[in-house]
């Protein structure tokens, strides 16, 4: 009888330790998940900011100004342009 009790006690202690460990692991993983979620959010915000920046640098008025002013580009004469494509076939 006493032997069985001792055995059960040992099992109980093992289970308790197991529970504590798994709980601890769970919490660790959870905080990691939380960190990653935060990072995802930060990255999304950063992405938005970069989109904003890309749009601002790529403003058509700015592109046009630089193309026409600094680079001296101009719209080609339509007569020198040949359109190719499925529809035109020319």
């Amino acid at each position, binding site marked *: 009888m006493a032997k069985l009790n001792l055995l059960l006690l040992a099992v109980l202690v093992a289970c308790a330790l197991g529970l504590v460990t798994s709980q601890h692991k*769970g919490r660790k993983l*959870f905080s990691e998940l939380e960190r990653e979620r935060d990072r995802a959010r930060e990255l*999304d*915000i950063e992405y*938005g900011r970069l989109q*904003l920046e890309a*749009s601002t640098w790529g403003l*058509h008025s700015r592109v046009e100004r630089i193309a026409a002013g600094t680079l001296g580009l101009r719209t080609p004469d339509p007569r020198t342009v040949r*359109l190719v494509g499925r529809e035109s076939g*020319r």
Partner: protein
Amino acid sequence: MTGAVGAAAQGLVRLPVWRARFVLAALLAGFSALVLRALYLQAVKTDFLQEKGDARYSRLLEVPATRGRVFDRNGEALAVSTPVKSIWAIPQDVALKPAQKRKLAALLGITTSELDKKLADPSRDFVYLKRQLPPDTAEAVIELGLPGIYDQREFRRYYPAGEVTAHLIGFTGVDDTGQEGVELAHQDSLGGRAGSRRVIKDRLGRIVEDVESIRAAQDGKDLTLAIDSKIQNVAYNALKGAVAANRAKAGAIIALDVRTGEVLALANVPSFNPNNRTRLSGAQLRNRVITDLFEPGSTLKPFTIALALESGKVTPHTTIPTAPGRLTIGKYTIRDVHPASTLTVAQVIQKSSNVGAARIALSMPREAMWDFFHAVGFGSVPQLGFPGAAAGKLRPYHTWKPVEQATMSYGHGISLSLIQLARAYTVFATDGELVPLTLVKSDAVATGERVVSPQTARAVRAMLESAVQPGGTGPRARIMGWRVAGKTGTAHKQENGGYAAQKYIASFVGLAPVSSPRVVIAVMIDEPAPPHYYGGEVAAPVFSQVMQGALRLLGVPHDAPLEPLEPPSGAEAAGEST
């Protein structure tokens, strides 16, 4: 006695029975007190205690939702929310030394007296000192470590295209909800819903466990609009240039893709910068394309002619007597700028003859005219889902007097928005179908509603093409390489119930390429300064510029020889009185 002596000898003392009972009773009383207390705590006060317990480690977290972004058809960002910080204070807790005050005011970009004013009322326990600061400035403020001053994360909306797309996109208020334009129209899908959840935090403030999600946060959905920001830019700049060159009060332009019914560009002048709305006037905010009404003038004549052709009363070659360039109905006289004795139906459009249009209109029942105007969308709100879209004024036909029926044939006595006018022209661009419009990108070919027969639509399109040839009213609308068709309009402005003598609205509506129309553009210039106020002089060049840009950007094949256009022979031909 021996018993007692025996017991005493063994060290035993017989105690009185009551003592044992007393101890038992005392223990019983003690236990029942405990049981009652436990019952009281477990059953009666459990909620309160549970709450107190939770408050030690569980926290309710707000989960912020971001507002959806707005893109143009090519994925270029037109509106993006990005986090900023607001600085707030509890006035009672704030104690500032003069040096600290100066430093804080400088960081916040306000004067010290303004700061004092904000902190003056100690009864308030929440005062915004400055909203929407860049995150690094806000951090610098918090790093000062002043008591009673805190920061709070918020979102601010940025519009990279600024004034170019201002009227279409609209803007959001300081709390990131839509107030105008698309931002307001699509508030439900763009605006996210902040959620909240309960978590357990440890001593260091780290989240260790998710207890429950009370409400899941829902980020706003991104929105892709139909507009092409390149065409939009061309349109805005051309319009701005024309309004400045003609010293006009305002202008508006809209470009439509005929196949899909998408709005490719929509611009207004004067405009405003949606990123900085500190000084806004009503005139800047007005969306003249969608929410403002005007009398269209001659740009409405093609509809009168289309109805006449459709009813079989005339053919393009039927001659209409227009001598002597005047038509008197009751006490009103309708005049032509270029009096002619007779004109064919096609020439009525080409020369923009009011008398001709009026005579044709008077030969038809007013009910048919009303039906047709109604069928092309005049007098009913366009289904755009845009806030404040105007329906226009098309009075019931039984109230029309003959003179009104005559003037309506050339666009007076009826008012509509520029978008209604542009949409109605899709009838001539699609061989007779009225195309439903959309501000949101759609790849599907729009299914129109048939309004006139293909023959009629093509005949009117041919007349519209002749109107932009030399000899018509709008030769300045032509583009090298593409065939263009369109109609000019020069309407007297309505003022105080009558027509102002020297105030005009110049307009032009047209389509291209004629062989297989792809784009419809409508331009309206409000009060161009004389001497140049005709639609053919003021609005047609804008149309030409924007149409050329749009066709080039859309890669539409040429359908006309690439030869330089002969310049129009003076301003003479552009003349028209409506």
